[in-house]
């Protein structure tokens, strides 16, 4: 007898993205409809974490067929229940259609967005119920932890992680096995492990999705790390703006304790370990490891000089291993499949996969996991579906506010830690913002610097004062008041801030400026020399609009809407725009019935 058998499972994504597009109502309506049709004993509803394809949410998947329905609204549930669940007829109109085609694709695995991905860390996201430890165990969960604790010594675990080539996914790419070894070798009875889930980069949401979609994976990774270094206590530092991630983590911790996977004598191995959640208030600098630990200790979150490194003197002065969420997320698979198999994915020095948050001017925004070494072109065009509105790619900003802009002509660049550094960007947490030809690179640099400047904690002078001075120059450039020598000054300031800041907040803040200066210098120069913003973004510097006399019919529609009275002419005769009066707001162009107005 298997009372848990249901002939069909309907998976409803209840990640933050899908919930904000209405997934909770979809779920509730589905439950009501199943009852109305007397199907509740045959069909099971499963809430899952994020599939990464947030653009298409709310997402509903029906098994055993594995049919992928997207942008499902409450009203669509009737068709899914009556046609699909009752009669087995796929509801065509809710299937995904590939960009620029008419072909509807029923199966998850056939969609371009998923075809080229290699999902390890995100493997369970969207496939299991994150609030059920049973489902996690059913997909081999805690097997790796059991194996490590009962069949391997801590040294063997460390050797396996070292052998896998795993590097930190929190930004800098430090070898994880080596970090564990250093922490293990540090003298001391009491040690800690910490999971860094602060995720402060604007636009990044991979850690949140992972915690929401598969929290047990992170707990399992942390138990293995704790065993390897000899820690009996750990913290997960999550920002308080992630309430769903925190709730699911709390549920998962509770379940793990009930199953004896946290607590005393785990797997009968004599090893004890427990975990606490610490909610952060959401300061960017608190993602920096020493500031994060100060914050856990109840102090103001500010970094301190290193060394000593956390592996020697971390939380409350004890040896501490701190890793990123995604780093821990890789650990169970490495321990289960072995270092060798893991090494086979990715490149020689950047093994495994990386999760990226694709945003900006791209057709398929969302979370993608790809093998290291995949080219930017493949990620943006094959998985991301290309630049939106058919526009031209100008640059890709990688690594968030600490990263840099990569120009379109470097599109064949294979993405790994070293190649990104070489071109002046960095992996960072994996934010990937796609920019088209309507983007002003000076404005972009200003945007990111404004973020880091306001998040600077103020402890060290180069970061506190230096970023402020840089921002002032950028503000000047963007308002048409740039001066000769500004670019050189930006470079000089940037280099000094990088080499003298206390932590990597300042140490990387100039990157967006320096990398855009390197690849888009002419655009900066146009702002200074010609007082012109080539992308027509910076207010007050955009080119004035002009009327094509051959097309103008003299309808006066433009005259009536122009806020500065810059347009004149006789009725039924071609009009003109006075360039000194025009403020380039573009309202006239939007009203012209014959499309005679454009920016000159």
């Amino acid at each position, binding site marked *: 007898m298997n009372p848990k*058998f249901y002939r069909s499972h309907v998976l409803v994504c209840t990640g933050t993205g899908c919930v904000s597009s209405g997934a909770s109502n979809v779920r509730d309506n589905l439950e009501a409809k199943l009852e109305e049709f007397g199907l509740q004993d045959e069909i099971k509803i499963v809430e899952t974490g994020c599939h990464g394809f947030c653009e298409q949410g709310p997402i509903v998947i029906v*098994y*055993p067929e594995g049919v992928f329905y997207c942008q499902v609204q409450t009203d669509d549930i009737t068709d899914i229940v009556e046609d699909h669940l009752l009669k087995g*007829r796929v509801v065509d109109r809710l299937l995904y259609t590939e960009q620029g085609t008419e072909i509807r694709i029923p199966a998850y695995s056939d969609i371009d967005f998923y075809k080229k991905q290699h999902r390890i860390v995100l493997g369970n996201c969207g496939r299991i119920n994150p609030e059920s430890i049973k489902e996690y*165990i059913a997909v081999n969960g*805690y097997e790796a932890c059991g194996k490590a604790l009962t069949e391997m010594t801590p040294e063997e675990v460390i050797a396996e992680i070292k052998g896998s080539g795993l590097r930190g996914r929190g930004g800098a790419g430090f070898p994880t096995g080596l970090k564990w070894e250093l922490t293990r070798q540090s003298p001391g009875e009491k040690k800690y492990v910490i999971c860094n889930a602060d995720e402060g980069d604007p636009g990044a949401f991979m850690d949140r999705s992972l915690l929401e979609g598969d929290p047990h994976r992170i707990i399992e990774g942390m138990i293995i790390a704790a065993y390897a270094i000899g820690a009996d206590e750990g913290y997960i530092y999550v920002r308080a703006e992630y309430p769903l991630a925190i709730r699911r983590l709390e549920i998962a911790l509770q379940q793990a304790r009930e199953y004896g996977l946290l607590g005393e004598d785990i797997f009968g191995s004599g090893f004890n370990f427990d975990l606490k959640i610490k909610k952060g208030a959401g300061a960017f600098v608190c993602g920096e490891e020493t500031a994060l630990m100060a914050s856990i200790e109840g102090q103001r979150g500010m970094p301190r000089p290193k060394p000593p490194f956390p592996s020697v003197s971390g939380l409350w002065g004890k040896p501490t291993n701190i890793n990123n969420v995604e780093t821990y997320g890789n650990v169970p698979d490495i321990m289960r499949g072995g270092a060798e198999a893991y090494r086979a994915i990715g490149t020689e020095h950047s093994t495994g996969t990386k999760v990226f948050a694709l945003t900006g001017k791209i057709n398929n925004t969302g979370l993608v996991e790809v093998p290291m070494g995949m080219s930017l072109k493949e990620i943006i065009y094959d998985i991301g579906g290309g630049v939106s509105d058919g526009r031209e790619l100008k640059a890709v900003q990688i690594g968030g506010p600490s990263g840099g802009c990569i120009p379109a002509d470097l599109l064949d660049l294979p993405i790994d830690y070293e190649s990104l550094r070489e071109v002046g960007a960095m992996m960072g947490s994996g934010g990937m913002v796609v920019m088209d030809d309507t983007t002003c690179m000076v404005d972009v640099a200003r945007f990111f610097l404004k973020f880091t400047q306001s998040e600077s904690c103020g402890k060290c002078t180069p970061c506190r004062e230096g970023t402020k001075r840089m921002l002032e120059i950028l503000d000047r450039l963007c308002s048409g008041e740039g001066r000769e020598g500004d670019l050189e000054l930006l470079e000089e300031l940037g280099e000094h801030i990088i080499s003298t800041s206390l932590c990597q907040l300042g140490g990387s803040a100039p990157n967006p400026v320096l990398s855009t200066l390197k690849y888009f210098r002419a655009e900066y120069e146009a702002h200074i020399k010609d007082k012109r913003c080539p992308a027509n973004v910076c207010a007050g510097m955009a080119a004035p609009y002009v009327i094509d006399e051959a097309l103008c019919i003299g309808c006066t529609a433009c005259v009536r809407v122009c806020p500065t009275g810059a347009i004149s002419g006789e009725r039924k005769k071609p009009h003109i725009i006075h360039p000194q009066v025009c403020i380039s707001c573009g309202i006239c162009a939007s009203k012209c019935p014959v499309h005679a107005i454009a920016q000159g």
Partner: protein
Amino acid sequence: MKSLEELRKLRAELEKEISTRNSEGKPKIIIGMGTCGIAAGARDILQAVTKEVRKRNLDVNISQTGCIGMCEQEPLLDVQLPGQDRITYGKVTAGDVERIVVEHLINGNAVKDLAIARLEEGGI
């Protein structure tokens, strides 16, 4: 959790709870749910099959299909074992379901007196 053995035993049980999400290499039961099928009582057959699979703790996928043009033979039920021909049963009653499940699905022998068609493996 006091041993790896205990975890593995638990997993063997729990795997069944999510087996519906996995269809590779598994036996299939397919029920005709076109208008003709439903009019002939296919809904009862679908429920009977689900009950039977649950009762006998089987690892099977149940799916539905539309009208295949043999309306006078409805309700229709197909059994497809991995690597074998797909057998169609016609005018199935709720009472026949148990026999088909036991004889064909579990023991691997098609129920000759109820079978009306055979589709070669790889057919529709």
